[in-house]
């Protein structure tokens, strides 16, 4: 039973990974690509890890995969935020169809 649930989790995670990388190829802008791919791939890899944990049980490898899930959830949004901030400060322009840019408005208000 645990094996069946583990395989279901692993394939859901693979679908998330695949669509995230498809968004990395298809979307028009740095920020859109970042938004699609980082969330999808982080969630997909965490789902794969949880499936591996369900298939292995409470062996050392399973507990290590749980640790890796916690580490990924803590660090992947931080790195995505840092990359977005660095891209905006280095002067990469938005896509021409994008509507609002709060970060530039905040910077203009401060200076």
């Amino acid at each position, binding site marked *: 039973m645990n094996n069946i649930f583990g*395989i279901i989790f692993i394939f859901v995670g693979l679908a998330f990974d695949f669509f995230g990388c498809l968004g990395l190829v298809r979307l028009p802008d740095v920020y859109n690509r970042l938004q699609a791919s980082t969330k999808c791939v982080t969630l997909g890899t965490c789902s794969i890890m949880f499936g*591996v944990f369900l298939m292995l049980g409470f062996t050392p490898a399973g507990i290590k995969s749980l640790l890796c899930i916690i580490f990924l959830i803590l660090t992947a949004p931080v790195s*995505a935020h840092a*990359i977005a901030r660095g891209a905006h400060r*280095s002067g990469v322009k938005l896509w021409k169809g994008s509507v609002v840019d709060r970060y530039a408005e905040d910077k203009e208000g401060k200076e």
Partner: protein
Amino acid sequence: MKESGAPLIAMKKLRWFIGTLIILGIFAVIIFYPIKILFYPDLPYIPLFTRALYILLLSCIFCLYRILKGPTAPDRIVAVDILGILIVGFCALLCIPTGRSWYIDIGIAWALQSFIGALALSKYLEGKDFDE
């Protein structure tokens, strides 16, 4: 690049053609003659996990396309970060059909390296020093 004449452009197209042929050949070898040394034959679910590894390999090819084609530097940095997270998933998947538990250790170390690399590259994008 604009000054180059017709022979250089033909040379470039030929080079792209040869590279595409090599990549397609590697895919054909992987699909029609799967790697049997890597997996133990006794353990279950081996055909299922080979399909899963093919899907992850296709996602990695998408990331490599973005690294080659990306118009600005942040595109390439995003693609490298995503490639790191994908390889962590790859290591976790390899753990079950081979029966060796140290693949997950490689995954944890790779996640740490990828995080530190993304932070350093974003600092470099902002144009600051590293000790700030």
